[in-house]
């Protein structure tokens, strides 16, 4: 389990409004909230996808996500941040991931949310397996474009 309320790995769906309200709670100095929600597409690599299953490495996932979150706080002045990632079976249109950050001014929140997502994609130990309509199962390959997206944040 996670040591922080700001990282959640869960099978259940999440509610954006509820989560953002919690993020803002007790912070009267917040002037900007940026949230990103990743969702399940019904198509990948040109094929229709029926089911997406998310596997993770318990404990390392929480540690990796917390490291990314804290690095975002070091790089930009943020008031609060939250990462929720779902695991298990999901279906097209389902929500998979939520990254939400708050700051006094919008610039920091935009950058930090973008950074957290780019780093999560290449550094957090999650793996996707998709099932096609004919029942065929396949592991999703990592993308070079994700690695390039991460590198834009290199110091």
């Amino acid at each position: 389990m996670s040591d922080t309320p700001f990282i959640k790995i869960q099978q259940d769906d999440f509610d954006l409004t509820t989560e953002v309200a919690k993020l803002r709670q007790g912070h009267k100095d917040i002037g900007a909230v940026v949230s990103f929600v990743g969702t399940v597409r019904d198509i990948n690599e040109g094929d229709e996808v029926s089911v997406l299953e998310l596997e993770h490495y318990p404990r390392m996932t929480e540690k990796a996500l917390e490291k990314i979150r804290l690095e975002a706080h070091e790089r930009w002045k943020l008031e609060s941040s939250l990462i929720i990632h779902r695991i298990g079976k999901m279906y097209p249109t389902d929500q998979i991931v939520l990254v939400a950050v708050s700051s006094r001014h919008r610039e920091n929140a935009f950058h930090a949310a973008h950074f957290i997502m780019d780093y999560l994609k290449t550094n957090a130990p999650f793996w996707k397996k998709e099932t096609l309509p004919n029942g065929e199962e396949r592991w999703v390959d990592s993308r070079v474009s994700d690695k390039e997206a991460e590198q834009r944040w290199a110091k």
Partner: protein
Amino acid sequence: MINILYFASFREVLGQAEEQLPVTHSTVSELLSELAARGDHWKVALADNANLQIAVNHDVASRETVIKAGDEIAFFPPVTGG
């Protein structure tokens, strides 16, 4: 003993999720050589795999990382979350 974990496609190809081995290796690289001797599946998935991802005690590691008794070593393919 060390605890070894295999995730995602590795777990399927190698037919196991976890195993314990006595510590007879000083680095991840030496452990990989021992595992490679089990057969082609092992060699191709792990030792010869340029995209092999390694973690020791939940931190990103490399083939040069030193291992000791009680460590948890994980092998997995590039991650695809988000």
